């Protein structure tokens, strides 16, 4: 085994521990990733994390799904409930040693309650460099309506 040969140096802890040993067998105490931290296999809520912002007549939903393709994702909208689910395949490699395993694998399902109903037929989904973007027009019932005031003569 060569493992011992790859332990070079110590982590530098002063600056938020940014320098680490690359090949370390200590699996305890993983550094938390941003936001969700360690992603356990078959998690529920914590993957993917979702950002939503209001762009007037549309809602923009963005989720980070590194390693996935559009075909790997299932996007469901029911009323104002959005569900993103899919599976990141577990690597099935033999004869290898994991020195670090922070990237989660397995199936996931993330549900988001949107503030308005969506025009489901006109949702556009794009996936670019591991970022899923959904542009979702608000349902006409959710758009502000201008009400004319007629003056009685």
């Amino acid at each position, binding site marked *: 085994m060569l493992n011992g040969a790859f332990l070079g140096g110590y982590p530098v802890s002063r600056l938020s521990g940014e320098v680490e040993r690359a*090949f370390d067998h200590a699996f305890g105490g993983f550094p938390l990733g941003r936001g969700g931290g360690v992603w356990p296999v078959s998690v529920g809520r914590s993957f993917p994390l979702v950002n939503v912002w209001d762009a007037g007549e549309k809602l923009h939903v963005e989720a980070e799904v590194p390693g996935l393709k559009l075909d790997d994702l299932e996007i469901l909208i029911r009323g104002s409930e959005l569900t993103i689910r899919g599976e990141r395949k577990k690597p099935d490699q033999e004869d290898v040693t994991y020195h670090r395993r922070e990237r989660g694998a397995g199936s996931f399902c993330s549900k988001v309650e949107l503030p308005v109903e969506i025009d489901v037929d006109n949702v556009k989904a794009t996936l670019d*460099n591991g970022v899923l973007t959904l542009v979702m027009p608000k349902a006409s019932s959710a758009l502000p309506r201008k009400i004319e005031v007629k003056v009685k003569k």
Partner: protein
Amino acid sequence: MNTETAVEKRAEGEVTQHEAMRGGPRYRPSVDIVEFPGELRVMADVPGANPESIDINFEKGVLTIHAKVEPRHSQESDYLLREYAVGDYYRVFTVSENIDARRISAEYADGVLTLHVPKSEEVQPRKIELREN
């Protein structure tokens, strides 16, 4: 050990310098590090990074991954839900010298950066063939 101290100091200096050069928060990408018989493979989740904006540096046993990521939507008041922040990815590792630094290669697909770090020839196990007489 003296050599380790030297690496520590050097790396620390480098991190400090980076910190001073660039403002804004940086995020630590999740990584897998897998040892194959002939190479170490580092896979890092860096969604939103462009391949052109990823810097990979290996110098004196220190491997640095830095991916610049510009904000995709900056109007704070528009957010209805914000579960993650967007910014640069940065992570530093120390690696022993038993690798062939000249042959390190990298590829990027679907927000995942993969580094191939070949082991140097002398540390690779040799296959010895046994023949029956």
